[in-house]
């Protein structure tokens, strides 16, 4: 990962492969888990900067991406995904699979074995009770928990011994392992005697089992973490980790250049600085793909968008190359689907998009959309006129929007820009599909699991009475069927076929016009080792235990 620029397409098989296939924990994984290594040699300080401020320290409560930057340092999950999408154990002694007996053949009974000798930052031993507590707290109706997906199937969590617990699932649910991989375990003893768990003192003085202890927080400025000398895995190798909040991306970049910041984190280096950043002496700069894809989402309940010819024509009139190369400086990768190209489940044989205004016009002509007196096409009283919304203040996206507006106008389509502040944009306006069309960056996956039921299942649209996030109000029985099949299968090869077919169906239907898969420009000082892009994790610190200086 120390290449100057590495686009990070790690096209190895990934994700959940352990669920059914035996023995996939290769020898490469073993090194990660040299338990109880001597960690007395932690030295030095590292300043990691984020452009948002982490403020939520109970990882089971509603939080945003940047908060997870702290969680990976302070807490541990049971197991996690590496950059190849394969599991490695953290608090678990081994990742439960069908092969090792951790999961029953039918996927309904789970057994989890934990590491021995792990302690919390306050010295209390970590046991299976803590895991049970964390899982149950997530399901507690009085607790403001972040997630419910998957947990609602969980029954009878039983502690067998200090290092073993079991539970049942009410139905087989393949994405459960991926959900557990992003469930941080918190200490039961910190909540004893606490009446309202939503406002426990723990929430601002977190105690974890992770590589770093929470030392102090200077609100609005930084959080200081110190090495946990008793960490149960290799590392940490840094004595102090400072997570600095720099609210402006230019200031953040300037400080990275001047050396005040050692690692530039979330929101990263802006694309317009890439060329300059790559020439900086003493810095490693790398472009890494993320699991978020940018698309123009269409509200399928609108009459204009119900005609497939219109959606196809709009897609043909989308000058992706100019958007990516000029506005985004070539950083992101064009895509035809929601699935990240690093994923095992990515379908690489989808038809390629071609920018062709003549074809777009022809498609519309054929379908009977003819220009009216003002040049805007119409058919049966429906005009090809709609609004497009996104977060006000997102400069690059607003530039793209205006550019798209101009090309769409050339084929007789009127797109009006109607942006909102974030709190309005992503509130009911988005959830209840009150928009005509949006520009949105979505990550529809849970970790490396390919299930996207919440986004594409026809019953998941809030505006059609569903409870998920199918805000495009996309309805296709074939997709519904594939999603059900995919979520209940534990065989990766089988699932791959299912999800590849689904990507093909969606590519044909175009409920959203895929633009690109996001990539971010990460940077760190060249005496820092450890930071590694991981498309399966939302944030840089997923392996902060391995970070070193010198």
């Amino acid at each position, binding site marked *: 990962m120390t290449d100057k620029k590495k686009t990070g397409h790690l096209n190895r098989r990934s994700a959940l492969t352990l669920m059914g296939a035996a023995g996939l924990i290769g020898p490469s994984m073993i090194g990660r888990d040299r338990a109880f290594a001597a960690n007395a040699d932690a030295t030095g300080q590292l300043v990691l900067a984020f452009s948002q401020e982490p403020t*939520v320290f109970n990882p089971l409560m*509603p939080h945003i991406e940047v908060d997870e930057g702290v969680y990976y340092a302070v807490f541990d999950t049971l197991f996690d995904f590496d950059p190849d999408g394969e599991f490695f154990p953290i608090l678990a002694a081994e990742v439960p699979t069908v092969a090792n007996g951790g999961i029953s053949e039918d996927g309904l009974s789970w057994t989890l074995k934990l590491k021995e000798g792990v302690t919390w930052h306050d010295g209390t031993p970590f046991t299976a009770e803590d895991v049970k507590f964390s899982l149950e707290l997530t399901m507690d109706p009085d607790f403001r928990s972040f997630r*419910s997906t998957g947990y609602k199937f969980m029954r009878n969590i039983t502690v067998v011994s200090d290092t073993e617990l079991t539970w049942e699932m009410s139905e087989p649910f393949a994405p459960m392992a991926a959900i557990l991989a992003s469930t941080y375990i918190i200490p039961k003893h910190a909540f004893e005697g606490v009446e309202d768990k939503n406002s426990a003192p723990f929430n601002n003085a977190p105690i974890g089992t992770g590589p770093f202890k929470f030392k102090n927080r200077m*609100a*609005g400025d930084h959080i200081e973490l110190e090495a946990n000398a008793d960490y149960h895995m290799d590392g940490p190798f840094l004595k102090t980790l*400072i997570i600095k909040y720099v609210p402006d991306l230019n200031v953040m970049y300037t*400080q990275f250049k001047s050396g005040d910041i050692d690692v530039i984190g979330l929101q990263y280096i802006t694309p317009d600085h890439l060329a300059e950043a790559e020439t900086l002496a003493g810095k490693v700069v790398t472009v890494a793909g993320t699991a978020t894809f940018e698309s123009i989402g269409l509200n399928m309940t609108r009459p204009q968008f119900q005609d497939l010819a219109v959606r196809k024509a709009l897609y043909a009139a989308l000058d992706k190359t100019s958007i990516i190369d000029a506005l985004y400086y070539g950083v992101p990768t064009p895509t035809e689907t929601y699935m990240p190209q690093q994923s095992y489940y990515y379908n690489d044989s989808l038809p390629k998009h071609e920018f062709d205004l003549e074809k777009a016009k022809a498609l519309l002509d054929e379908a009977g959309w003819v220009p009216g007196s003002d040049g805007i096409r119409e058919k049966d009283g429906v005009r090809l006129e709609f609004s497009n919304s996104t977060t006000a203040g997102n400069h690059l996206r607003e530039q793209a929007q205006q550019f798209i507006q101009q090309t769409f106008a050339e084929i007789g389509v009127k797109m009006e820009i109607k942006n*909102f502040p974030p*709190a309005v944009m992503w509130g009911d306006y988005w959830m209840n599909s009150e928009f005509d069309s949006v520009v949105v960056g979505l990550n529809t996956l849970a970790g490396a699991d390919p299930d996207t039921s919440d986004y594409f299942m026809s019953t998941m649209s809030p505006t059609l009475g569903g409870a998920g*996030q199918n805000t495009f109000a996309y309805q296709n029985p074939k997709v519904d069927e594939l999603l059900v099949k995919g979520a209940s299968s534990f065989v990766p090869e089988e699932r791959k076929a299912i999800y590849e077919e689904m990507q093909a169906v969606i590519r044909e239907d175009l409920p959203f016009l895929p633009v690109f898969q996001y990539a971010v420009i990460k940077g760190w000082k060249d005496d820092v080792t450890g930071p590694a892009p991981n498309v399966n994790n939302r944030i840089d610190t997923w392996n902060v235990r391995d970070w070193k200086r010198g």
Partner: protein
Amino acid sequence: MLRYLASRLGQSLLLLLIVSFIGFAVLNLAPGGPLSQFALSPGMTQEQIDKIASQMGLDRPLPVQYLDWFSHLVVGDWGTSYRDGQPVLHVIGSHLFATLLLMGTATVISVSLGSTIGIFSALKRGSTFDYTMTVLAMIALSIPTFWFGLIAIYVFSLSLGWLPAGNMYTVGDGSVLDYLRHLIMPAVVLALVDVAIWSRYMRTSTLNVINQDFVRTARAKGLTRRRVLLKHVVGNSLVPMITLAGLQLPMVLGGALVTETVFTWPGMGRLFLDSLGYSDYPVVMGLLMASALLVLIGNLAADLIVALIDPRIRLD
């Protein structure tokens, strides 16, 4: 005196009530809300958002929410932040120092520089100096503060590389010199408008004093111009300025907000913008109330100080 105080306090409390009502209505009647920031998190569903909303009491009717919030406020409980679960007063308190440091420094600059300019303008009324200062002051009042900040960053940070472009200190340094290096640009930018205002008012105030009898008497008694100036003119012209300082408070505070956004200064202005972005209503309301409170106290204190040092003014 006591009666005056009581009535002023009563009025101030009434004001706070109105402020709280306006603020609450503005925030809560608008679409969107604190949960929209989670909408794009992977795995988030409408069902889950509804559940969290109901746990946080966001699904209750607005008047109920207002009364609930207000009844806690009167007993000193300003609520807890939606973001970090900390008491609002604690959240505001932890950002107060940065803002006070910035405002304090800017005020010192503007009062000293503004007063000096004002006094000299008055003494040399009609001179080129006076005229130039008048024009400069009006231009200073017309420059957008945030833009001036941007230009300062362009010149002193990006082009010359003399000063840092943002933040309050360097992590791991934090010496006085380090603070000063970070402080100087935002403080000067914030002070610019106030220098203009102070110099204008100080000029008027000095002119009023110069023309008063006791100054003429003092001159007639044969005191040197310098002594008269220092002893009588400056002291007396400063008295009305104390009231001005009180009245200027909302402007300085508003200016600090603007300056903080440009220089990524970790103060209350930054907190306000962040809290707005996350729809952290308790903190936004807290900041609105705190700033109104600060302004009211400032005005009250200014009136009292003037009354104490100037025996001619009676407060009844």
